[in-house]
């Protein structure tokens, strides 16, 4: 039942009983009126009867006076006669008036008046006669007959009136009965009707109300369930989740968040986020920016700074990887911020181990390369030594010694290059990039020659960057080796290096581009290119080269990206490395210790 229908039902429930009761009252009033009218008519009959009886009494008084005068002749006896004369006339007048509506009685009254006047005539004759002649039998007979007539007429009238009264009484009684019955019946009918009507309406309203209550209960149950579902889902997420209101106060924390921060939800609720979620930079230990502030400022999902350390309530520290996102209302207004983060301490440890293992693999490959590079001249030296032992010709000996010296110099040069590759300063130093890249190319020269690869270099001079040379050499060795493998025999590689001006997002530095004439990198491969353990080289590759390279470049504050080659002849892969002139890399830390261990 909708609200208007509900209101209409309520109005009906009040208005209809009032209307019915008013009708009942009107009916009762009409009944009472009828009864009163009947009662009035009864009273009228009684008044007529009383008048008639009084009239009869007055007649008798007059007759009695006349009889006394007849008997005695004494005028004193006529006193009642005289006293009654006036009232008789007034009674006649009254009766005429009262019986105006009753023809039968009017006729009787006229007859009575006639008889009375006749008797008065007789009485007049009596009064004016000689008293002696009054009391005669004839006179007496005449008077009596007249009076009998009067009495008879009066009696007729009285009877008539009595009959009338009887009839009216019956009517009044009937009316009274009717009235009672009507009253009872109408009261019962109205009562029943009202009862049924009210019952029906109250039922309808009650049913509607029940339905509404049911609906509300159902809706609130569903709401509760859905809330529970979301709560459970959030609780079950393996990542830590903290929600804040727009003021940066904590409103929700899931179990993982409670475990990592060391705060229970009860304690944390309503507290500022920075109190509960205390984050600092891993190395500098400076307090990291409040993610709520950052999201409010940017109005979008943000990844938080790398190398963030969460300090739990008890002082325990976790390396975390996190992101924060605005919570939007239906109207698109920001009403809070949700933070998702996870403990990457273990992951970071594994990453470090992987970096070390890639270093080992690099070292292994390097060892093979060293063996090859060194054993060739060593073999010659050993052979020359063998020949020298048997040679007596001084000229020939000198020639052997010269050759031996030449081969030893070559060995020394290779050895020095290898050493410089592995001798690493503890702090970033100024590196001449041209020298560094040429050193890398020198080491790979044989490989390039073997594959008959055409190498083009477009290297600007005087480009220095701050950094760790061995690490950067590892990066470029990696890139060039990849390019050699991609280009294949008789392929083409171009290495371009140029100065990069300071831009909006990065400072000045150098851009080094390594492009090859290979088949290029398909899109699905490209997106995994910098992921660990991703390799296109089968068992030959560790799948860590580019990942480690990216780590090194990022450590230097640079970037490594796969770009689209601009030259149609070099349609293969083109990797671009940006290195800032001033590095962000800090003092050599654990990573470099791993390296020296490797």
């Amino acid at each position: 039942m909708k609200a208007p229908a509900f209101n209409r039902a309520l109005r009906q429930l009040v208005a209809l009983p009032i209307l019915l009761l008013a009708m009942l009252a009107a009916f009762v009033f009409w009944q009472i009126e009828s009864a009163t009218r009947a009662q009035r008519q009864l009273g009228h009959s009684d008044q007529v009867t009383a008048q008639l009886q009084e009239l009869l009494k007055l007649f008798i008084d007059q007759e009695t006076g006349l009889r006394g005068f007849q008997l005695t002749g004494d005028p004193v006896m006529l006193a009642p006669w005289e006293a009654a004369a006036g009232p008789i006339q007034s009674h006649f007048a009254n009766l005429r008036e009262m019986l105006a509506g009753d023809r039968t009685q009017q006729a009787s009254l006229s007859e009575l008046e006639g008889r009375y006047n006749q008797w008065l005539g007789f009485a007049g004759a009596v009064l004016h006669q000689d008293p002696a002649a009054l009391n005669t039998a004839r006179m007496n007979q005449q008077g009596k007959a007249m009076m009998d007539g009067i009495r008879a007429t009066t009696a007729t009238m009285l009877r008539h009136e009595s009959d009338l009264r009887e009839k009216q009484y019956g009517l009044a009684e009937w009316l009274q009965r009717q009235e009672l019955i009507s009253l009872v019946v109408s009261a019962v009918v109205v009562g029943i009707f009202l009862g049924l009507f009210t019952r029906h309406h109250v039922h309808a309203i009650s049913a509607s109300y029940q339905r509404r209550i049911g609906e509300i209960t159902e809706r609130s149950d569903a709401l509760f369930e859905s809330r529970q579902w979301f709560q459970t889902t959030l609780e079950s997420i393996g990542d830590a989740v903290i929600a804040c209101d727009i003021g940066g106060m904590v409103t929700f924390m899931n179990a993982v968040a409670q475990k990592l921060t060391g705060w229970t939800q009860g304690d944390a609720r309503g507290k500022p986020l920075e109190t509960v979620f205390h984050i600092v930079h891993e190395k500098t230990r400076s307090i990291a920016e409040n993610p709520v502030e950052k999201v409010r400022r940017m109005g979008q999902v943000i990844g938080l700074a790398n190398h963030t350390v969460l300090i739990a309530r008890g002082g325990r520290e976790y390396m975390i990887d996190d992101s924060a996102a605005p919570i939007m209302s239906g109207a698109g207004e920001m009403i809070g911020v949700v933070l998702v983060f996870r403990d990457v301490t273990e992951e970071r440890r594994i990453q470090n181990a992987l970096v070390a293992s890639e270093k080992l693999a690099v070292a292994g490959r390097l060892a093979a390369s060293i063996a090859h590079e060194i054993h060739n001249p060593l073999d010659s030296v050993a052979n020359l030594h063998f020949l020298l032992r048997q040679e007596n010709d001084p000229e020939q000996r000198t020639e052997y010694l010269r050759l031996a010296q030449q081969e030893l110099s070559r060995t020394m040069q290779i050895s020095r290059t290898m050493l410089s590759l592995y001798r690493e300063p503890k702090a970033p130093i100024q590196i001449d990039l041209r020298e560094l890249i040429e050193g890398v190319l020198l080491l790979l020269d044989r490989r390039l020659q073997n594959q008959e690869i055409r190498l083009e270099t477009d290297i600007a001079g005087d480009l220095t960057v701050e950094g760790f040379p061995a690490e950067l050499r590892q990066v470029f060795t990696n890139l060039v080796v990849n390019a050699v493998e991609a280009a294949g025999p008789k392929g083409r590689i171009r290495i371009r290096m140029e100065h990069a001006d300071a831009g909006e997002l990065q400072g000045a530095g150098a851009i080094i581009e390594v492009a090859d004439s290979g088949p290029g990198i398909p899109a699905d491969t490209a997106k995994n290119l910098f992921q660990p353990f991703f390799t296109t080289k089968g068992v030959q590759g560790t799948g860590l080269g580019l990942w480690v390279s990216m780590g090194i470049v990022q450590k230097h504050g640079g970037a490594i990206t796969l770009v689209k080659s601009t030259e149609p002849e070099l349609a293969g892969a083109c990797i671009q490395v940006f290195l800032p002139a001033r590095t962000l890399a800090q003092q050599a830390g654990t990573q470099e210790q791993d390296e020296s261990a490797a």
Partner: protein
Amino acid sequence: MSVPKILCIDDEALGLQIRRTVLERAGYQVLTAVDGPTGLSLFRGNEVDGVVLDYYMPEMDGGAVAETMRRERPQVPIMLLSAYINLPAEVVAMVDVTLLKGEGPQELLEKLRLMLGTGAQYSSEAPARGGAV
């Protein structure tokens, strides 16, 4: 028995010349080639008794050269002499002897002698003979 003829193939020209001298001093007749294709044409044009082959060479590596030789004249013994430590297993299985560069001339001559089955005649202590490199 005539002087055994050895074909030496190595892209390291200087090392090849020095090796040639060592082998000649040991009494062998030596043919040299600085790449696979040249080596193969010498192999086809000469009755050689053995081959000393480098593995890591541009264009055509020692494996490919050995495979061709085995197909053409499988009876000719081949020694794979390389500074490369990760030689593919199938290449190692194909040749008669492998030797790591830098193990010294005595080892080279000894293994070559065993490979050719020529007894003690061409020992590493063979008398010195003059000859320019």
